[in-house]
């Protein structure tokens, strides 16, 4: 016997129409697309090779040849910014994927099994909350040394308990809904209910939270790279560029402006996208705002 139908969702075309009329979603989508486009473009083309050092042309102001000028090593700032987008997107994607896959699995398990399993998983997440992302990343770099991979893993690991909690909270609400009770009465197993009913119904929450945490991962990676614990030279990174720029605040203050704007645009875009998605995927929340 098949389970009773899940409440109907609006079609893709209707969703697209609403999305196009949603200012926050559209602004977020445009800004995020800009960052993705910059990252993709840098794979095939940059005005100058990003790692190209030439001290003869160091600290040049913006010009037709170097749109945003050059840094202390004569590298083209615009090229570094374009290539830096790749790093930020990589960190966000992998960290959120790690947190989402393992966290959602733990959350779904806690919600499906309840009892001591749920209690154990939730207590485990309790004390991992004592370590903010930056602190857990610092612990990891103290052991494994600084680097992009270590910072991605550290941020991802910090996200596991975060997503476990979000998933378990939302999944518990779905488990008490009538259609799930009906499926259970029909003899469906916990795994099948989890995959067919619970997961699709909490997907929107996970998508929204994934977007928001993508932005937070970009901020965390920028902070780690600024401290010298994240991306290592010669790989370009926005946080690292800010660190280099701080030493030249008196000679070339503009160098401290562009990478910050790039980080802010990426984070703002993702936050607006997350806000928009939340409104579009859960209209009840939109009405309350």
């Amino acid at each position: 016997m098949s389970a009773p139908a899940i409440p109907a969702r609006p079609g893709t075309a209707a969703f697209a129409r609403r999305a196009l009329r949603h200012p926050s979603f559209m602004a977020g989508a445009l800004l995020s697309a800009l960052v993705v486009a910059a990252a993709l473009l840098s794979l095939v083309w940059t005005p100058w090779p990003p790692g190209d050092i030439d001290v003869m042309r160091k600290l040049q102001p913006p010009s037709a040849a170097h749109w945003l000028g050059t840094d202390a090593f004569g590298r083209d700032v615009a090229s570094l910014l374009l290539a830096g987008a790749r790093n930020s997107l990589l960190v966000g994607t992998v960290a959120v994927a790690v947190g989402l896959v393992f966290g959602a699995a733990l959350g779904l398990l806690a919600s499906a099994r309840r009892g001591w399993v749920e209690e154990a998983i939730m207590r485990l997440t309790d004390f991992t909350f004592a370590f903010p992302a930056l602190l857990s990343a610092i612990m990891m770099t103290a052991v494994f040394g600084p680097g992009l991979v270590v910072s991605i893993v550290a941020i991802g690991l910090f996200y596991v308990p975060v997503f476990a909690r979000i998933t378990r909270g939302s999944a518990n609400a779905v488990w008490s809904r009538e259609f799930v009770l009906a499926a259970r009465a029909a003899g469906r197993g916990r795994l099948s209910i989890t995959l067919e009913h619970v997961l699709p119904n909490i997907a929107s929450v996970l998508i929204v939270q994934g977007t928001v945490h993508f932005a937070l991962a970009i901020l965390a990676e920028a902070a780690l790279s600024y401290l010298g614990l994240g991306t290592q030279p010669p790989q370009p990174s926005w946080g690292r560029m800010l660190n280099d720029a701080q030493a030249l605040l008196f000679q070339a203050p503009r160098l401290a402006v562009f990478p910050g704007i790039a980080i802010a645009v990426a984070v703002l875009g993702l936050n607006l996208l997350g806000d928009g998605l939340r409104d579009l995927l859960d209209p009840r929340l939109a009405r309350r705002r």
Partner: protein
Amino acid sequence: MKLFLLKRLATLVATLFGASVVVFLVLEILPGDAAQMMMGPDAAPEAVAALRAKLGLDRAPLERYAAWLVGMLTGELGTSHAYGTPVAGLIVERLALTVPLALMAMSMTVVLALSAGVYAASRHHRLGDVGVMGLTQVGIAIPNFWFAILLILLFAVNLRWFAAGGFPGWAEGAGPALKALVLPAVSLAVVQSAILARITRSAVLDVLREDFVRTARAKGLSRRAALWGHVLRNALVPVITVMGLQFATLLAGTIVVESVFYLPGLGRLIFQSISNRDLIVVRNCVMLLAAMVVVVNFVVDVLYAVIDPRLAPSDA
């Protein structure tokens, strides 16, 4: 209420214990030979062996963990490998900067966020609301260390009102010391208050729709008096929850901001200790920061019960 407090206290102790296990596993067991790691790959085997014996690494892990726990309770945290001084003394010295900085930043956050959040809610869907919400979106997107650099650019490089960094120490008097903390605190507070202002606005809007607010207004209470006297108190529960969570972010933020302003605080001590491979200092500092986060969340839980006594029994 007593049972509620006891349960929360038990959770606090269990969480601290769990956090200490994580810190010990990551910073003591995971590196394998911590002495080798601290001295680097080129160190002479005799020197590594001497450090291993000095740190007690030849003892069983459980014994070392127990010794560390006892040390934390008695204040005997060992000696820093890089500085050659007791870790407890180092930490206390650095806390004299980090604690005032965090408190200053949190106070600024609360004042800014509550004013902006209540103002935005009171102008719901009007220009003031849209303006404040737009600013908070930008505030959330700005990394605090970049904002700190922009503050240095404006107030230290251009206007020359503040120094670009450094800390004169409390011995020079409270005035110069506090002045050195103003820009770091502002850079932490502005970003944090952007998040808190949004939560405040949304919580105030929820309470404004309640019947008792309509009754209070119908009885002749002015809008301002109802807002600050009735609405804000009832909107505080979600606001305090986020404040508790934000304290953790703020403490982590001090690590970065202290580096921007070259402040000799706890964050900078951790950062320098990582560079020096001084794992004993890193372990104790990380544990201290984690303990601060856990204790603040405990205080928040207790505050809930004080603000809204209905929450205590239902949660107990």
